[in-house]
């Protein structure tokens, strides 16, 4: 079939070229429309349900909102697990879906359930579906600044103008505000006055509620005109509130002014923003799932320009985090590497081939191959990012291989034909026939090479979890590029060869490069054939060195991607107040801005932006540090040194200076579950009990061999002030629990009773006791609860102080309550020394040990409690289930392919002996470059595996063919034949390996964003191909000759 295709193409040359013009156009348009981001989204596919219940403790949120909510959400189809967390004033339900579930389908299913799940919610709890954005969605942060504007004015501009305008931009899912103050009308009531006038706080609230409404009253006609009738009564100012009447006291109206003060003030907040040490307000733009961030940011910027005109004078929108730079940088790194690769490849080919036309033909594979890869990416839905473009980058060298083989073959055949016919020019028909014949000859090997590369990548496709999401784009694009290259090699290249392989064609023996190669290679090979044992011993030494180096190399999941901006994340202990954290943030930001000259600006956020995708607690500061261009840096300053300097200079007691990067941090913040190798989850309703069991387990697991520092999490950490109602006392005064609770909620906590409507803007009206009368335990005692009934002879209801009704106490409580599938859990984290014991074995042993303890009664797990084992060992189990078979299948398929090609086992044996040696070169280079062993490296090795196999296969097939032709009988003959085969292949072999190695050099020397991920991936191929080529050109002939010689001797 391949032969037919080749022949068909060569006979319809115009059609082929026309088709490729179309492919080119389509490819370019695909390339332009492919969404571009810096890194693939490696977060789990999750839908977040966000519940807000302002002012409530984590315990209340868990019991009254999150628990009923999760019970209702359970049973949503395709959900892997429902995890939830309850924090102060809000809760999150993370519904983790199976991979490859359609995102919007999943959201719809959650929405269906949500309707039902909401029914048991407290009235004032607000439950919403999170925005349709992922962790990678926070693409643009900005501040709203103005010199003469106060923070609440700026926040109003952000909340009521900027926010909605930016939300309207195509591709934006949500714009969340952060920092500044939300304006609020604050009615501060003096309880003593209430007491004096004998009214309760509820009266005050009721009065305000009843005094804020506009109504319509249809129309009336007058003189043929219809008048629309309105009743105006919205609160518009402080005075409006002050004049609200509560009742009548001894003949005079009692107004709000008589019982308290009305002021404009800031609403309670759980987040703040600071720029260079000055408090600011701002927002974050969340991009919709699956959108193209580059384009969305572009549109946002256009929109900002549009609306800037409408901003009050002096107010500007200033971005402080913009993904564009990073995306462009990393794409630039890769595209410039790609371009350099292409140029270098053309050059290398030219050197080896010594024919410009031929070189150009081969190099056509690259641009068109890449475009075909983009077409396929667009169709399959693979986005452009570091990983997917990296897949193309590591494919470049290999892509030209088939082209090289093909063109070289046609070239040689043409020269041979000319010599045979002894003419300088062949007729068209002859040229065509030579082209067809020569192409058909290599058609199968080209296809074979493609198959081996694709098959060897199968294990990458079956990777699951984070690694899977990170590397599958790469596996896809590499495969696409290879497919593209193969298509071109079999259709377009023969056609082009027909047109362009003309003029002076030198015979191989006249080729200068070939001459040099032959001159050096021949004696080397001869010597090796004589001293086979030494060669084998050297190979074994290399093998052992590589293996031992491999075993001592350090491991990491992923090499770090340099995101450009830094994210400084100082964290205080749980329980720190917003004021305290704010102080720390401002001082640190001033230092970072003023004392580090490399810093352009620093904007810090503490606590949360008002979006479901930001669960940060108040004690967490996230400062985005924009750095100046490298050329403005101090001499000798590196990113690493800068990080150390910032951490040193901002060091404060009790503050942990964590330095990370914006995107990575987002992904981490939204990750849930256990990320240590082994974890035990203790499920149960009572937090104290599960904590206790966890701590016991910590001790038990520590005794198991191989356990490294097991740690049971402690749930307490926040200071709670509890008011426990004494029912006996309450009964004595005839007071209901709800009466006391209302007072605690509104008097102490404050409550927004109504919302003003002032044009587009809306502000809450909050009622609360005066600050100095409620913000310390002593004063809380004298907060009065009115009795429900009038006592005999009393002028009104009695006012009973809180101290006589409740027990006050300070206790430690949870700062966050986590649960999974509706059940709260405590986690025990275990690291395992994997040099001592395998993960899966460790878990087995630990499980036995725990069971033993339970059976012997040393560990008591009460009814309603259970433990479950989790952690990354699950991934290993899963990998064992999937990866091993897939690797076996891949290997088997390759072996079957090889057997089909050679029909004998001897070749397979030699291949099997040579391939490990190829891998060792990669390990040695990694060691020399001080790279860690990461999944990226492993992917590099898989790529190497394919290339190395191909090269060895080509040489072996030449050897086989030659031996079949010559049938050598003596040792001398054998060696001569082997040498001949070697010489025949040395040029193409060197050409393919050199193109691959040299093509990867731009990647190896790249420095921009993204290079840090690509380098470890390229290194195994570069290093491996060096040993692979040596093994190929020396060890393969040696082993082959050895076997043949043995056969004769037998």
């Amino acid at each position, binding site marked *: 079939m391949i032969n037919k295709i080749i022949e068909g193409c060569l006979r319809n040359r115009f059609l082929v070229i026309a088709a490729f013009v179309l492919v080119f156009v389509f490819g370019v348009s695909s390339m332009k429309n492919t969404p571009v981001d810096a890194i693939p989204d490696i977060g789990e596919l999750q839908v977040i349900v966000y519940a807000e219940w302002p002012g409530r403790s984590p315990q209340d949120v868990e019991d009254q909102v999150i628990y009923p909510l999760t019970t209702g959400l359970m049973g949503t189809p395709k959900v892997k697990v429902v995890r939830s967390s309850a924090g102060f004033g809000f809760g999150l339900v993370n519904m983790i879906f199976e991979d490859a579930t359609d995102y919007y389908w999943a959201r719809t299913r959650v929405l269906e359930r949500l309707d039902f799940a909401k029914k048991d919610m407290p009235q004032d709890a607000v439950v919403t579906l999170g925005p349709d954005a992922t962790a990678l969605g926070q693409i643009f942060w900005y501040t709203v600044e103005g010199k003469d504007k106060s923070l609440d004015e700026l926040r109003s501009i952000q909340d009521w103008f900027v926010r909605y305008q930016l939300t309207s931009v195509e591709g934006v899912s949500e714009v969340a505000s952060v920092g500044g103050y939300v304006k609020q009308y604050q009615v501060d009531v003096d309880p*003593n006055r209430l*007491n*004096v006038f004998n009214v309760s706080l509820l009266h005050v609230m009721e009065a305000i509620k009843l005094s804020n409404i506009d109504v319509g009253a249809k129309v009336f006609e007058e003189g043929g005109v219809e008048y629309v009738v309105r009743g105006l009564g919205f609160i518009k100012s402080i005075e409006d509130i002050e004049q609200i009447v509560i009742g009548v006291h001894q003949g005079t109206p009692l107004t709000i002014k008589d019982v308290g003060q009305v002021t404009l003030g800031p609403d309670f907040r759980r987040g703040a923003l600071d720029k260079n040490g000055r408090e600011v307000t701002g927002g974050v733009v969340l991009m919709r799932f699956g959108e193209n961030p580059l384009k969305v940011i572009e549109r946002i910027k256009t929109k900002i320009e549009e609306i800037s005109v409408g901003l009050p004078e002096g107010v500007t929108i200033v971005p402080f985090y913009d993904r564009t730079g990073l995306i462009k940088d990393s794409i630039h790194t890769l595209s410039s590497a790609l371009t350099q690769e292409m140029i270098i490849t053309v050059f290398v080919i030219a050197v080896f081939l010594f024919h410009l036309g031929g070189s150009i033909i081969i190099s056509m594979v690259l641009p068109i191959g890449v475009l075909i890869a983009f077409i396929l990416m667009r169709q399959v839905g693979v986005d452009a990012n570091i990983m997917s473009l990296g897949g193309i980058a590591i494919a470049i060298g290999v892509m030209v291989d088939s082209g090289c083989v093909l063109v070289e073959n046609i070239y040689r055949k043409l020269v041979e034909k000319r010599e045979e016919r002894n003419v300088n020019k062949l007729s068209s028909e002859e040229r065509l026939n030579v082209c067809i014949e020569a192409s058909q000859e290599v058609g199968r090997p080209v296809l074979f090479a493609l198959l081996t590369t694709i098959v060897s990548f199968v294990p990458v496709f079956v990777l699951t*979890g*984070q*690694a899977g999401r990170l590397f599958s784009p790469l596996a896809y694009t590499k495969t696409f590029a290879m497919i593209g290259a193969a298509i071109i090699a079999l259709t377009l290249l023969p056609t082009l060869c027909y047109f362009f392989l003309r003029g002076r064609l030198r015979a191989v023996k006249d080729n200068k490069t070939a001459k040099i190669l032959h001159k050096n290679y021949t004696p080397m090979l001869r010597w090796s054939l004589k001293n086979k044992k030494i060669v084998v011993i050297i190979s074994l030494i290399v093998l052992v060195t590589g293996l031992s180096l*491999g075993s001592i190399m*350090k491991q*990491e*999941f*992923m*090499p770090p*991607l340099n995101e450009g901006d*830094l994210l400084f994340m100082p*964290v205080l*202990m749980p329980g720190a107040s917003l004021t305290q954290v704010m*102080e*720390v943030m401002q*001082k640190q930001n001033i*230092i970072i801005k003023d004392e580090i000259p490399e810093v352009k600006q620093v904007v810090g956020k503490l606590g949360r932006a008002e979006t479901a995708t930001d669960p940060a607690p108040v004690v967490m500061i996230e400062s985005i540090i924009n750095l100046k261009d490298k050329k403005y840096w101090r001499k000798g300053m590196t990113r690493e040194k800068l*990080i*150390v300097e910032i*951490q*040193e200079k901002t*060091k*404060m*007691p*009790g*503050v*942990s200076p964590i*330095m*990370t*990067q914006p995107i990575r941090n987002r992904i981490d913040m939204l990750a849930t579950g256990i*990320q*240590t*190798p082994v974890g035990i989850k203790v499920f149960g309703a009572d937090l104290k009990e599960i904590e206790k069991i966890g701590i016991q387990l910590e001790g038990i697991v520590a005794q198991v061999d191989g356990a490294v*520092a097991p*740690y049971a999490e*402690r*749930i*307490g950490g*926040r200071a709670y002030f509890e008011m426990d109602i004494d029912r006996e006392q309450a009964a004595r005064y005839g007071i209901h629990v709800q009466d006391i609770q209302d007072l605690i909620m509104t008097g102490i906590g404050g409550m927004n009773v109504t919302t003003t409507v002032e044009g587009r803007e809306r502000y809450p009206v909050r009622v609360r006791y005066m600050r100095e009368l409620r913000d310390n335990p*002593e004063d809380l005692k004298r907060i009065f609860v009115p009795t429900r009934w009038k006592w005999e002879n009393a002028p009104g209801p009695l006012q*009973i*102080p809180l*101290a006589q009704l409740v027990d*006050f106490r*300070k206790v*430690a409580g949870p700062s966050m309550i986590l649960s999974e599938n509706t059940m709260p859990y405590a986690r025990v*984290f275990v*690291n395992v020394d*994997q040099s001592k014991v395998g*993960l899966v074995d460790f878990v087995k042993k630990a499980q036995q040990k725990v069971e033993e303890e339970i059976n012997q009664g040393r560990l008591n797990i009460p009814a309603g409690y259970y433990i479950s084992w989790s952690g*990354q060992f699950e*991934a290993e189990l899963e990998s064992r289930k999937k990866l091993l078979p897939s690797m076996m299948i891949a290997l088997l398929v390759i072996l079957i392919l090889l057997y089909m090609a050679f029909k004998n086992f001897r070749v*397979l*044996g030699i291949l*099997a002996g040579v391939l490990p040696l190829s891998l060792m070169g990669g390990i040695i280079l990694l060691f020399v470059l001080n790279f860690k*062993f990461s999944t990226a490296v492993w992917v590099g090795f898989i790529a190497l*595996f394919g290339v190395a196999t191909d090269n060895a296969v080509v040489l072996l097939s030449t050897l086989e063919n030659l031996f079949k032709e010559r049938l050598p009988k003596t040792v001398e003959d054998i060696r001569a034949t082997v040498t001949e085969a070697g010489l025949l292949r040395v040029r193409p072999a060197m050409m393919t390996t050199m193109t691959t190695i040299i093509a990867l050099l731009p990647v190896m020397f790249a420095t921009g964003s993204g290079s840090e991920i690509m380098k470890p991936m390229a290194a195994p191929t570069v290093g491996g191909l060096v040993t692979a080529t040596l093994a190929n050109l020396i060890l393969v002939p040696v082993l082959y000759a050895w076997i043949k010689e043995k056969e004769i001797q037998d």
Partner: protein
Amino acid sequence: MRNKIRVFGVIILCITSSVYAQEGHKGSHVDGVHEMIPAVTEDGEISHYTCGMHPSVKVSVENYENGDTKCPICFMPLTAVKSSGMRSQAFDENVISKVEIKARELKLAGVQTEVVIKRQLFKEIRSVGTVAYDPQLAIAQDELVSAIRSLDKAKTGAVREIADRSQSMVDSSKRKLLLLGLSAEQIAELEKSKEVQTNLILPGEKMWIYGDIYEYELPWVKKGSYIKAKPIGFAGEEFYGEVVSINPVIDPRTRSVRFRALIENPGSKLKPEMYVDVEILSKYVDPDGQEEVIALPKSALLDTGRRRIVWVNKGNGQFEGRAVVVGPESVSHSNELLKFYPVLKGIKEGEKVVIKGNFLIDSQSQITGVVASSFGGTLEPTEQKGSMKGSPSGH
């Protein structure tokens, strides 16, 4: 053939083992992408690593270098903790933790200290009251005065019966006054002066204030306690006086007790029936009867519910966390905005305590300190149930 199989074995082994090595470590070493570089300085070696959010996490240097660079709970990079060389010191009683902090960091954290001195402290109680308009009491006083007068007359007279009747009238008038809230001394004085307090019905140079306090405040309000009255009408004006008497009977309905105080009324601004906010300042006397007590500034105390901790500056960047026992929150004599706790145990006079930045120091002690301290512990059952309620603590 056997050789070939062996060679096959090698290749399969190579690939699969490299895959395993990867898979196994994938999760546990999710480092890298975070650029966490432990800050190493000239002083002190890194003793272990911990998490800023979860201080009870401790990872040894060895494990850290082998890749445990993230907090198992929140996946955040761990922070290096340097040994401060005071690992093995024995602690005095009450000392729960020690920590050393560098001068620059102290300055940055805005740490402020204050020398603890002895002060006279007052317990402050807020209440509301009215300027007395009490014709009933005035009449009762009048009755007593006339009863005494008639008794005096009767004594000089011959009729024994009249004197007896007058005596019983005097006695019943006294009882009535007692019930109305006058103290025995006040009655005795009235007997002597024979002057009815007209300021109970009309504005005068001194006025009576009637206010209510609750059962739980009773131990703190005594005869002679200072009192400050702020009439609702005159914003910012204050009137001073002292508590003269406290009703002997508690109102059964509200569990409150009426007190009477006499206050200066310059310019006769206070009128009967006016509402006033009242602050009662009652002298704090420690269990040994001392009036001058060690006064701990309120902001120096970290109360976790489990323990009350004060950080003492020992000089040279050394800080010591102490568990303390304190009395009720009180105010200073000179300025009632300055709040203190009388120290019953744990702090000596003249010691420097941290009044600002103590939360940070306490946090630091959990990271580097020798013993984990206040916040960030387990959910233990609370030992202190009800300890903040009602009665003065420390007795």
